[in-house]
């Protein structure tokens, strides 16, 4: 069988740095080919070359039987190559049908838009994607992330895509939506579409992929049939060595209650939530998207102050209406979106790390630069941040290293209570294990950690107890001994059923 797209000996450099070295890659019709590697391994560059965004410096590309030096966006479209990017590229003010057919809308004989055909075909496409509930006339801006993604896939199919590139498609999805996406992908594969699937999540890859290719530092490590690899061997290929334990969790030494939240509410996003967080404990928070997980964190941290309820720290009632108050009470918040609430990207590593604890290194009005550089250097070596040094600009770092900078910033405030919202979203396996190990060490030193995560394995692997939220309410609390995919998953979905029945 001829490959749909075949790359041979591909190389690419940016600003003198080689990001791809002599890489071979191909996609066959009707297969899911997973592309794996740590951040900075060259995955994004590779798929952007296939999508026609970047031109390679060397190597040969074949689309069908045609041989090319580089793919232009036009040739990519002609060759049936479509991409569903991580950051979805849709127009929020246009309807679903308009988005699906943007740029290639069916026309009437008078060369005007054929609205009825456009709506009908959009309907057919969405039905074929198992989404009969999605209205073609609503504005895309009102849709959930999962639904937008289906629109994006429908858009790709409307252009007769033979090769579909999916870059971290499940990064922002809840479990139920992930499963639905899996079904859609399998259906596309049956139709003969070749799918390039980029993801950090190994379970997905084992469920979906037919073959898997691993890149490391821009070089091809290998392409294997999925039956020939195990989770361990894939991780070893990615990081270049064995990672002993996926969730390194030392025995917890749980102490007295540090944070006590009673009947906490914020509008209808957080409703009447009560729980206790103890010294040395990692308390996981699970729930579907929209269950109020992040909102709970924002409320405790004072970004969206509570509308009712009380918060006690070490038995004393406290008022938290600004992040500054929360910080001064020893609470730190590592946000879900590090680009949005975590980092000031034009600033250096040192400046970011000192940002929340500037008062500690300021004499009178002036910042002590020496102390700042020293603390940054300490954080870099303790957290294993891979960087040129404290004066490197944060925007240049990879996702995992950026996340460590955010963590370093908050550890500088010497918090007693650390709230981590999706601590490892979008970062690679190696950095993930490092952050998990760090969380374990911090808890052992007596820090109380509240960890929000949409990755069930992470919640189960790291938590001493798990809070399950739904619709802004606390559904149940499950001990580590009783927490497993079934019990937590059931708590998350049972609530759904109960509410639908009500």
């Amino acid at each position, binding site marked *: 069988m001829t490959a749909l797209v075949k790359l041979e000996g591909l190389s690419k450099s*940016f*600003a003198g*740095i080689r*990001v791809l070295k002599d890489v071979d890659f191909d996609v066959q019709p009707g297969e899911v080919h997973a592309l794996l590697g740590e951040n*900075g391994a*060259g995955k*994004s*560059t590779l798929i952007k070359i296939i999508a026609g965004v970047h031109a390679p410096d060397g190597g040969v590309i074949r689309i069908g039987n045609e041989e090319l030096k580089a793919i232009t966006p036009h040739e990519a479209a002609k060759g049936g190559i479509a991409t569903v990017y991580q950051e979805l590229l849709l127009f929020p003010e246009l309807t679903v049908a308009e988005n699906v057919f943007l740029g290639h809308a069916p026309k009437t004989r008078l060369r005007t838009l054929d609205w009825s055909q456009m709506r009908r075909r959009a309907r057919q496409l969405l039905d074929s994607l198992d989404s009969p509930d999605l209205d073609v006339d609503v504005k895309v801006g009102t849709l959930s992330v999962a639904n937008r993604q289906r629109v994006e896939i429908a858009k790709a199919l409307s252009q007769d895509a033979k090769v579909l590139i999916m870059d971290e498609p499940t990064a922002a999805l809840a479990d139920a939506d992930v499963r639905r996406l899996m079904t859609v992908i399998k259906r596309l594969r049956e139709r003969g579409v070749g799918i390039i699937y980029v993801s950090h999540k190994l379970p997905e890859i084992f469920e979906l992929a037919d073959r898997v290719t691993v890149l490391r530092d821009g070089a091809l490590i290998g392409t294997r049939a999925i039956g020939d690899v195990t989770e361990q061997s894939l991780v070893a290929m990615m*990081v270049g060595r064995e990672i002993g334990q996926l969730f390194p969790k030392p025995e917890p030494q749980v102490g007295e209650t540090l944070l006590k939240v009673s009947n906490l509410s914020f509008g209808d996003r957080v409703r009447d939530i009560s729980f206790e967080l103890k010294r040395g404990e990692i308390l996981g928070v699970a729930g579907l998207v929209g269950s109020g997980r992040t909102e709970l964190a924002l409320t405790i*941290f004072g*970004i969206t102050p509570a509308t009712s309820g009380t918060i006690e720290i070490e038995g004393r009632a406290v008022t938290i209406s*600004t*992040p*500054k108050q*929360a*910080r*001064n009470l020893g609470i730190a*918040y590592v*946000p879900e979106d590090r680009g*949005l*609430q*975590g*980092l*000031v*990207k*034009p*600033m250096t590593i040192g*400046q970011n790390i000192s*940002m*929340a604890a*500037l*008062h500690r290194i*300021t004499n009178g*009005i*002036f*910042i002590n*630069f020496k102390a700042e550089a020293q603390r940054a250097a300490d954080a*870099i*070596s*303790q*957290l*294993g*941040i*891979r*960087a*040129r*040094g404290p*004066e490197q*600009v944060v*925007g*240049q*770092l*990879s996702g995992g290293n950026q996340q460590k900078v955010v963590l370093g*910033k908050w550890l500088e405030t010497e918090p007693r209570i650390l709230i981590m919202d999706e601590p490892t979203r979008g970062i690679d396996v*190696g*950095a993930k294990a*490092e952050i998990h190990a760090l969380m374990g060490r911090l808890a052992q030193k007596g820090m109380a950690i509240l960890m929000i995560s949409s990755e069930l394995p992470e919640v189960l692997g790291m938590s001493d107890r798990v809070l399950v939220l739904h619709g802004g309410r606390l559904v149940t609390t499950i001990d580590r001994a009783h927490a497993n995919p079934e019990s937590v998953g059931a708590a998350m979905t049972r609530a759904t059923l109960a509410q639908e029945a009500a």
Partner: protein
Amino acid sequence: MTAEDAPPFRARRSGLARLFSAYGQEIVIACAILVLFAVVSTINPRFLGANNLNTIVSGNAYIAVAAIGMSMIIITGHIDVSVGALIGVLATISGTLAVSGYPIWFAWIAPVFVGMAVNAVVGVLVAYGRIPSIVVTLGMLSILRGGLVSVTGGAWINNLPPEYQLAQQRLFDIPAPVWFMILFTVLAALWMRHSAFGRSLYAIGGNAEAARAAGIPIERRTVQVFMIHGAIAGLATVLFATQLKIIQSTVPPNLELTIITASVIGGVSILGGTGTVIGSTLAAILFSTIGAAMIFINVSPYWLRAVIGLLILITVLVDMARRNREMRMARR
């Protein structure tokens, strides 16, 4: 990867390389000024005369001073298009006080406080009213400009007392405005770089949400930076108003744009979060050097604006190219 096998820092880059990466734009402008002097003085040696040099720098010193405040505003992620009109109003207030028999020191100091008060209003509307600064200052621009013409009826202020002419004073044969420009630039540069306050402005301009989460009181800082900018506009006003024996009820056309341009060419990113006040001062000097050079080599000074416009486009283009390169480096 644990800390042990993380690669060690690459050896610290040389001092020169770090200086260039931190102050690239400032160095480029300083070089441009030097090259311009070298070229024009070979064509016309009188260009380097002490008197000419003083005129070049002194006449535009008030623009450099106003650009200090403007740079702070832009670094914080805002903009102020009303500062030209504000300087016009403050000049009239100062002149009126001077001819009405108030003490001279009072006429000098009043614009600083009035400027602060006016911009406190702007700052409150921006910070707490959550109105974009461009909208608030556009409104303020109309109010100030309209108000000024209505109140003065376009009349000039004459008969200013001679001792009011601060800008005519000299120390070591260098005009007072030049001293003030240097003093304020150095103070502001130190303040912006070394104080927690200055750092917080860069943080807010770079990412307001992250700054808020880090405990920086964004609203209060916004009001404060607008008030400081108003005070600095007041200082600039004194340098501007005390140059001549009269005060017109108008300011040079597009004064606010000239001031914003000095900031942007000086390396302050219009998107906020980066740049220095040294850059904006150098850019203001560059403008007046270009203007004077054109006269000395017999090019119509009307080309000045076109040349400055060209400089803006080049600067922004270079800034965007740099940003894009950094994004690519980060994303690969």
